[in-house]
């Protein structure tokens, strides 16, 4: 009798759980490394694999536990004596100068990091020694901030670093750290190539353009069934790298974008480009630029009578889009790095503390920086003052999840967060969020989890 009751209870639970999972797909609240290990690299959608229709590649990278193997001598180096230190220095590299357009992300990132550090110090720091943030400014000039990581190492003896937003700066820091062995946690760049170098010194916790591109491509082509999409992108590194995964996925699905147009990073007039696109008979437009320029494009597009839906990456999910475009922004669909409407207690507590300290709402950059700094602090506390062992502690997150204020991250073998993203649509002047639900996922949601929640 008992087994019948158990079976009945199990069936009832399964029936109840199935619709819940279907309604709330997305991020892993219960990770399943075995299932995740069977995923394609970066949770690539089916039929998006390069040359997948034609040939099996000779070799695959990034899908085995030794993807970031490090065989240096760092583990044998003696730990520093924390008793002799006044503070445990951690580096910060981010765009902070107001004239730099990316400073809006950098300042939020700094605030998130400071908040995490303040909490860690309130809880005793490291054996009673406070953590200290050594702030370095990222510069818009290529390579100008290249020396910052070197200075952090030789002048300030940092144990690890957080940063940066710009993909080029992050790459330069990554190359330097291959020689200097300083762990980097990056919580802001969307450059998908920073985790594709096999340099074992970086953990990346932000939805990159690969994840965003897959989410947008699936939504546009598999859910909305659009066929003739055009791309308008900024002519800078962010625009060039950002749209590539979306473009390649569309091509592999037989939905070759009808045109790709570029514009200068500081352009304000787009009428000429839009008229050109108007004549193509496109049924959707994907933008890859910052929020203000996207707002200008959408406004000018609607003024020309173009009614096609507009899509874009996470950098568009900013109030500047709505402020610039006005009512024309309604209907724009973007990827979002976080869902700020979540009722998750961790997020709510973080938002309350952030508001109290900075008198503003936290954005995705603040939330991820807070999580990233917490990851770093936990790694330092676990490993002690030895950089290689600190990085080893971060490597322990490979194929595991981390529940932070930004949501639940899931790190693959390259230590890149590949958890599902959030989608957003502008409705009546506000962003409305929903979790990503890719058409090739099963009813249980994201393949990397046993249950599903939202980022």
């Amino acid at each position, binding site marked *: 009798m008992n087994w019948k009751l158990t079976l009945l209870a199990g069936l009832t639970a399964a029936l109840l759980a199935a619709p819940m999972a279907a309604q709330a797909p997305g991020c892993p609240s219960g990770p399943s490394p075995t299932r995740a290990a069977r995923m394609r*690299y*970066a949770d690539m959608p089916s039929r998006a694999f*390069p*040359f997948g229709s034609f*040939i099996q*590649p*000779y*070799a*695959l*990278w*990034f899908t085995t536990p030794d993807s970031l*193997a*490090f*065989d*240096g*001598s*760092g*583990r*044998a*180096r003696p730990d520093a004596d924390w008793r002799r230190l006044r503070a445990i220095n951690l580096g910060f590299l981010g765009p902070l100068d107001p004239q730099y357009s990316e400073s809006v992300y950098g300042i939020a990132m700094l605030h998130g990091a400071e908040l995490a550090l303040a909490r860690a110090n309130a809880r005793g720091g490291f054996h009673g020694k406070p953590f200290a943030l050594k702030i370095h400014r990222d510069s818009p000039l*290529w*390579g100008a901030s*290249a*020396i910052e990581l*070197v200075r952090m*190492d*030789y002048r300030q003896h940092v144990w690890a670093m957080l940063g940066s937003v710009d993909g080029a700066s992050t*790459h*330069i820091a990554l*190359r*330097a750290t291959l*020689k*200097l062995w300083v762990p980097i946690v990056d919580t802001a760049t969307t450059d998908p*190539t920073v985790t*594709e*170098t*096999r*340099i074992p010194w970086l953990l990346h916790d932000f939805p990159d353009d690969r994840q965003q591109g897959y989410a947008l491509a699936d939504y546009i082509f598999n859910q909305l069934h659009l066929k003739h999409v055009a791309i308008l992108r900024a002519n800078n590194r962010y625009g060039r790298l950002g749209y590539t995964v979306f473009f390649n996925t569309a091509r592999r699905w037989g939905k070759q974008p009808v045109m790709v147009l570029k514009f200068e990073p500081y352009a304000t007039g787009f009428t000429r480009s839009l008229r050109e696109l108007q004549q193509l008979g496109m049924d959707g437009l994907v933008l890859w630029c910052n929020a203000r320029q996207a707002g200008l494009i959408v406004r000018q597009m609607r003024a020309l009578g173009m009614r096609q839906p507009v899509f874009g990456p996470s950098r568009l999910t900013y109030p500047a889009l709505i402020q610039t475009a006005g009512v024309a922004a309604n209907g724009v669909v973007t990827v979002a790095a976080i869902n700020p409407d979540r009722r998750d207690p961790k997020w709510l507590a973080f938002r309350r503390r952030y508001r109290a300290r900075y008198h503003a709402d936290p954005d995705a950059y603040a939330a991820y920086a807070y999580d990233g700094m917490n990851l770093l602090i936990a790694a330092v506390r676990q490993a002690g003052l030895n950089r*290689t*062992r600190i990085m080893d502690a971060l490597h322990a997150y490979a194929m595991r999840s981390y529940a932070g204020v930004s949501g639940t991250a899931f790190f693959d073998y390259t230590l890149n967060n590949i958890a599902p993203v959030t989608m957003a649509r502008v409705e009546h002047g506000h962003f409305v969020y929903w979790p990503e639900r890719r058409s090739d996922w099963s009813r249980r949601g994201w393949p990397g989890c046993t249950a599903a929640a939202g980022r």
Partner: protein
Amino acid sequence: MKPHLPSVAARTISPRAAARLRVGLLAFTLLAAAAAAQTPPLYSRWINYTPANGFPRGEVYCVAIAGPRVWAGTEHGLALIENGRLRKVFTRADGLAAYAIMSLAVDPNTGDLWIGGLGGLSRYSAGKFINYTVLSSGLANDLVYSVAVRGKYVWAATAAGVSRLNTWTHSWRIFSVVGKPSAPFEEPWAYALAIGPKKAYIGLWGGGVVVYDLRRKTWRPYLDPDGAPEIVLYRNQGLISNMVSSLTHGAESNAFWAGTYFGLSGYDGARWHNYMRQDSGLASNFINGVALQGRRVWAATQRGLSEFDPGARVWVTYRPANWRALDAGKAARPQRGEILITGPGGHPRRLETATSLAHNYILNLAFQGNDIWVATAAGLSHGFAAPARRILYAHPNRVHRHPARAAYARQTRH
């Protein structure tokens, strides 16, 4: 009564037979010498320069030879070794521009030493340092990863492109994605340089290899043809990855070898030859440096120093026998050395030596005659070749009893 002994005359060979014997011995000696020339030496004895004997602590990034002098670029300055003794360690306090020294090049005409590192470029001449940085010269960036000298030009690979100094006119030229004329770089981050008499080979981080014809002033890029970092489509598809960490080129031909973090790529002017740990005797796919010694290519990897003879198709890898314990931090220093010899058959033969490289994480190497100098993550190693010639001449019948040479010979017979 004396025992009967054969007469001396009975044991003496005829002049004709003696001549035949002399010719035979000469032929044997010549053959043995030829064999010795064809069979590469094996480095079975190592002397290490580590903090234990006063060498700077930390990683050794590069090494350069200037006659009897050996220069080593380290995490904490520039070390000079002369006649086997550490003479001096130069740091920023002595006038160096860089914090850590990434690359060294000796000007064969002037004897000047060019030093590239994280902090700028320096020239050591007549006992003084002259520094070049972004603010004081035409250097594109203060992170200099490679420096090379050819004729009157000094080339520097930096994080924002390649800078070239004309030492006669003191004028600079920058090759990068910006400027006129711009170079066809996918990314401006230059990592490796190899300057030949006719061509300059530039290794770019994320941008493959770009070859500049010095006479025609034309460019030719070589990129990973599949364009997807997550795969290698075909074994010999072209450049194995766009993440190029190191380069070396043949003296006369168009051939060059590129070290990447995904394996080793060689181009012979017509075809590509790619090698990965999975399909060869390469110690690791993570390659920090490459060098050519005749036809043989050397790869400084994070799991040992690999040497490949394309003619014999034999790989030889050197590393400490306890390298796993060293990596894990469970051993402070290497115990014995390990030599792995892998032939076309693919099954490595393992030999042990009494001395070893300072560490298995190898960053670079240079040759000083028959000797080899290896920059490792835990010190500088000086390797001595097995005395092959002495063995051959002294004990010609024992050539293949020398364990290392015998193992090599067995592998080449496959």
